[in-house]
């Protein structure tokens, strides 16, 4: 069981309503709506009431699912981090060749970024506002994502020290996160191709 599920389990245990009345999709709806609002109007400007309104429940109703706004942001981050990490590790295990592995990871990073752009933007802008636990979670998942790309990159480019490889990965991932805003500039397929090429160019730069 992941930590998210454990946290969710605790919340459900406290839910006073009979089991049949609970709506299993509610929690996910709240997370999705909140992340959209955070990215749109900022974390601080978004109140629990706004989030409630977006999914059609009253402010107090939200508190049955999440103790605070911070808890919503952290649950969303944790969910995305768990999912991404599982996928990244599956790619790493299934792709022994360094070049193939790096390309697969970059392609996966772009797909997951375009799917979660609101969350990534919020995490990047608001990470100072996370609790210590949330901060640690964000930092850990960022470190792991960087490490997974840096491994095949170091194999592919013996000219780089590990610190240099990690630096190139860090700036490439930062670039990808900033460029999630380009989604209305190009059709999605072309955008993916474009970002893949700029990311690979950055990773292979300076050799």
């Amino acid at each position, binding site marked *: 069981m992941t930590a998210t599920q454990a946290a969710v389990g605790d919340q459900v245990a406290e839910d006073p309503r009979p089991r049949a009345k609970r709506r299993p999709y509610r929690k996910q709806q709240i997370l999705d709506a909140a992340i959209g609002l955070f990215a749109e109007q900022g974390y601080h400007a978004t109140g629990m009431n706004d989030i409630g309104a977006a999914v059609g429940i009253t402010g107090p109703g939200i508190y049955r699912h999440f103790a605070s706004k911070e808890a919503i942001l952290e649950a969303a981050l944790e969910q995305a981090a768990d999912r991404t990490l599982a996928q990244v590790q599956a790619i790493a295990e299934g792709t022994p060749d360094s070049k193939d592995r790096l390309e697969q990871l970059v392609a996966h990073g772009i797909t997951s970024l375009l799917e979660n752009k609101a969350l990534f933007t919020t995490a990047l802008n608001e990470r100072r506002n996370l609790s210590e636990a949330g901060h640690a979670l964000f930092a850990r998942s960022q470190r792991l994502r960087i490490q997974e790309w840096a491994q095949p990159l170091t194999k592919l480019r013996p000219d780089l020290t590990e610190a240099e490889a990690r630096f190139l990965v860090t700036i490439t991932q930062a670039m990808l996160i900033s460029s999630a805003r380009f989604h209305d500039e190009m059709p999605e397929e072309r955008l993916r191709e474009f970002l893949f090429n700029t990311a690979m160019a*950055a990773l*292979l730069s300076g050799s």
Partner: protein
Amino acid sequence: MATESIPRDSTTDDVPESGRRREILLAAINLFRERGYHATGMTDIGAAVDLTGPALYRHFESKEAILETALLNAARYMENKVATAIDAGSEPAETLQRLIADLVRTVLDYPAVTAIAITERRHMSDRAKAIYDRSTRLRAAEWVGPLKTLRPDLTETEARLRVRCAQDMLAASLLTPSQLGSDATGARLEAAARAILLDAGGRLMPPQWPADADDDVPLTG
């Protein structure tokens, strides 16, 4: 955390700031970067420069005014640098190289103001945001000219987005501290920006990794 100065030209050239205003801007920029705009109060800014509330408000009417002044000064500083590079009238390759090097230098010299331009931009008023964004677009457009001369095969959109990718990469590189020394960081950033602008292309994306089968499973259940 290391503190920084604010771009010098913004105080000596066309945006004159008195010594006191300058000190306040400086202190505020560093506080915004360390704690975030929202968590920083006027009282904190005042305390950092030994001013009480009322005295601080004689210089700036609000926290928002401080943020806007700092970011708009920085935008003007960068615009001036771009104009100087373009006016030098060098060959496109040399111009582009200088534009990249100038931006890398600015980012490394003024990390706090560059970082808050990303993380705190949306706290500006709509009017200030419009001015700031216009400046960003203008600076991007100035890079597109030499790039298109060097890479006539790129479409207008692609050239423009490459420029934004390169510029965003340089700014966003600051959000995670670099483990390399400052010279090595600068050289790596310049090379990466050049590669994004000039070398990218020609790679086929690998077939998409199977979509996550768990995507639609609700959290509870």
